[in-house]
């Protein structure tokens, strides 16, 4: 069975510093992986997706993620955090439907 594990339930950074949100996946074959973001009281927005074309995936708002098969990881990064990045982030794997990780709440301090 495919699943994802988000290693941190809560991450706090200062504005202008790098962001790292960690995700490990479990799959018997090369999966399709996504990162979604949910701002407070809002719906879900796709940040980026990996579908085996390139291991480094660039998304919206300066986010990117790297698929590392040897480490079974798909960590989300951003070089410089902005206050508007504060939200809940979900790592997701897809098979018949999307299977969500438990989420990481990103807090950005001024």
């Amino acid at each position, binding site marked *: 069975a495919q699943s994802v594990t988000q290693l941190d339930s809560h991450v706090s950074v200062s504005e202008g510093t790098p962001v790292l949100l960690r995700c490990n996946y479990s799959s018997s074959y090369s999966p399709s992986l996504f990162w979604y973001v949910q701002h407070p009281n809002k719906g879900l*927005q*796709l940040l980026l997706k990996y579908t085996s074309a390139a291991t480094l995936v660039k998304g919206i708002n300066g986010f990117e993620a790297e698929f590392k098969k040897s480490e079974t990881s798909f960590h989300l990064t951003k070089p410089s955090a902005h206050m508007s990045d504060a939200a809940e982030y979900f790592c997701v794997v897809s098979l018949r439907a*999307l*299977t969500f990780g438990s*989420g990481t709440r990103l807090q950005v301090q001024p």
Partner: protein
Amino acid sequence: DTAVSQTPKYLVTQMGNDKSIKCEQNLGHDTMYWYKQDSKKFLKIMFSYNNKELIINETVPNRFSPKSPDKAHLNLHINSLELGDSAVYFCASSQMTGENYGYTFGSGTRLTVV
């Protein structure tokens, strides 16, 4: 021009009532889904329909019944509402089932059972 629209956005109701949530997509997608997000933000698939046919039916109480009159609509009816049904329900659609297609989510319906 909302791609996936859900109504209502908020729903407050008493225990024991029956309620419905409607979802419509104008993307021409052939697969639609219902997800439930609990108070801890955990999201889980409930149902999926492909061209009006039920293809995913996770472990959900029988009080929940999806209905898809056509491939652009997927409604969720809930009988005998319980306190534990309080959650945010998201509708989504995709072009096809499988891993390589994008999913579009509605803005969610916040259901509060009192």
